[in-house]
């Protein structure tokens, strides 16, 4: 039995045609494309898509894993809030295992903090209604994809007059991160596979600077194997025939103008922070969201005192280089040795959208084959 909207994008026949088209269009020349979104990184490895690309087409992984880019100091702050007596700390499951300087939220939970994992910010609101005598804090993370649901939750909390609910806002915006990568030297990128989910909210307009100022193609892509391969084909066609532009492969979901209502809710509840620290990318101006002053009563950063110190990543950890696409996950010194999904040192090994976790969980066999090829004279020739 086939599953609509899933199986139709996973037909081996169509996949083989796209794969052949990529071989034809790339002419054996090296092409280096960055997939911005962690969802794409995950899909590429989950489906073994790299097996279907010719060797000369290289995909490098970008900064679009929301769990990965949160700096360690913010996790310390989260744990400090979770440890306040009376607090119920509500978080997405992904965040529970990210290490801080003093263990993870899962350790804090085992140690007595009331940490609950939830699937939607509205679940946090339900917790607040159910426990009027407790303080419920929602750990908000994510790009423009998840920020609107946080905004909707804030509006609803205010509408209901809830007094025991607040948001620890860590929402970030994707465009400044892409700019930071484009401005860092030596990347040698030939184009971008654009983030599908973020684009449903912000539309295509914000990406126009990529072809205009940097002369590179970007194709906003869906998450099925055929979506990603087709996006690669579209990028290669732009490179062959020009002009470079923003294209929408994911038109079945993404409207060119984005989702105006979601953007309005964001504007009503949140504003840009002057700067925000990204793990690995450092401080980037105008790259993250904070609650507006008129939502201060729902702002956990106002309601709680937290350490709010900058914590440097462990020395061995090269998440930053991985997030910029400057190195492949396996090139990190601790990849697969000291840093594994069970004992992660860096956040990229935690989230399913993190490049290191994708490589380790799904890609080790491909690495082994590559390694075997590289170790033999034929492979190095």
């Amino acid at each position: 039995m086939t599953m609509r909207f899933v199986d139709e994008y996973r037909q081996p026949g169509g996949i083989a045609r796209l794969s052949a088209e990529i071989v034809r269009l790339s002419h054996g020349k090296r092409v280096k494309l960055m997939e911005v979104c962690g969802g794409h990184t995950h899909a590429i490895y989950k489906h073994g898509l790299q097996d279907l690309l010719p060797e000369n087409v290289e995909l490098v992984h970008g900064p679009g894993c929301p769990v990965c880019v949160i700096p360690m100091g913010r996790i310390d702050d989260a744990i400090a809030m979770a440890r306040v007596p009376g607090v119920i700390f509500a978080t997405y499951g992904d965040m529970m295992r990210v290490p801080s300087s003093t263990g993870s939220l899962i350790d804090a939970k085992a140690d007595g903090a009331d940490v609950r994992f939830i699937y939607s910010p509205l679940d946090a609101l339900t917790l607040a209604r159910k426990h009027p005598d407790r303080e419920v804090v929602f750990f908000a993370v994510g790009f423009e994809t998840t920020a609107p649901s946080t905004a909707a939750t804030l509006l609803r909390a205010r509408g209901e007059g809830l007094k025991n609910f607040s948001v620890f806002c860590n929402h970030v915006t994707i465009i400044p991160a892409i700019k930071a990568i484009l401005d860092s030297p030596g990347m040698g990128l030939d184009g971008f596979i654009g983030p599908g989910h973020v684009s449903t909210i912000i539309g295509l307009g914000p990406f126009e600077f990529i072809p205009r100022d940097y002369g590179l193609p970007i194709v906003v892509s869906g998450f099925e194997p055929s979506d990603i391969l087709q996006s690669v084909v579209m990028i290669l066609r732009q490179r062959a025939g020009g002009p470079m532009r923003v294209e929408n492969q994911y038109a079945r979901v993404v409207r060119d103008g984005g989702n105006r209502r979601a953007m309005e809710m964001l504007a009503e509840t949140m504003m840009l922070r002057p700067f925000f620290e990204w793990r690995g990318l450092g401080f980037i101006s105008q790259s993250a969201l904070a609650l507006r002053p008129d939502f201060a009563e729902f702002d956990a950063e106002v309601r709680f005192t937290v350490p709010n110190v900058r914590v440097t990543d462990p020395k061995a950890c090269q998440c930053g280089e991985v997030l910029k696409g400057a190195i492949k996950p396996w090139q990190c010194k601790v990849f697969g040795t000291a840093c594994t999904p069970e004992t992660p040192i860096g956040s990229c090994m935690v989230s399913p959208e993190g490049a290191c976790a994708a490589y380790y969980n799904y890609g080790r066999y491909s690495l082994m084959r590559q390694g075997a090829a590289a170790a033999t004279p034929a492979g190095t020739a």
Partner: protein
Amino acid sequence: MTGGSRTESSLPAQLGRMERARIVRDGTPRLRDEHVTLSHGSGGKSSHALIESLILPAFRNPLLDSVADAAIFSSAVGSERIALTTDSYVVSPLFFPGGDIGKLAVHGTINDLAVSGARPLALSVGLILEEGLDMAILRRVVDSMATAATAAGIPIVTGDTKVVHRGKADQLFINTSGVGVLDAGVHLAVEDVRPGDVVLVSGYVGDHGMAVMLAREALELDAAIESDSAPLHRLVTALLAAAPNTRVIKDPTRGGVASTLNEIAARTRLAIVVDEELVPVRQAVRGACEILGLDPLHIANEGKLVAIVPPEQSADALRALRGHALGADAAIVGKVLAEPEGMVLLRTGIGGSRVLDMLVGDPLPRIC
């Protein structure tokens, strides 16, 4: 810094370091945690670390060290071999589509005996009750246990009841133990698995874990998924009659089929390749997994078995499974290879391949 020469020269070196680290980890699993976390109960890697590094060393003996589903030893009186197993049940909620904690407690222990090749003879039950528990709930659970035991033809012959203060347990927990006998000639051992052997599963995977999760989390997914909780002893009997050289049988509960196959690959130092297209997964389970970002092969089952059989008996094994109501949707899903050593690979639907690892962490605590 990321030039081609570095890539080609150091990947094999890095893989060598990873392999050495893996061997060190496998040899002496390190328990670094200072507290028990929910991950230690997941059936995945943390559970293994806990068992291998804290529990096994304390009780060390040859029967326990085989870490099989049941311990098998000779009786003092006759030539018969006896199987003994135990399991505790903490599932939340107590009642879910397709089952409840009582039915699960009976089936789970029967299945641990069955997949060891034993004929279950009798069960014990230990109840830990929270003060204030509604008597109607307890009656419903006990009735369900009785019905399940009667239907399976295995009596509950001894038991124990304890009550703890309100808040010190969540409604009720159950422990069941079971004893069975192995008929002469039955020999199942993971060490017998050979390259070329065939991997079968007895039906749709992931039903139980997903049913409990949907019942508990109020995810508002409009999917009718029922737990597959069922006693497997008769199915095992049918399988062993048709394929007497069956190497090993497992029930893929916590951690799902992926964890079961990884345990087999790790113990035998062989590889297992699974073809994603051949694994039976209900559409509703696949849909829920897509939405939640989970892999059906990591989701628990309570009425399914995984069997590894020699290639010449695989057709008979499949026919025997399909001939039984509980194995009607059985399928051959993969095979055993000599290498890459200790690894489970998945051939994906689009023709790629990737590692299929054990579950790390626990997306679904307290599903059994």
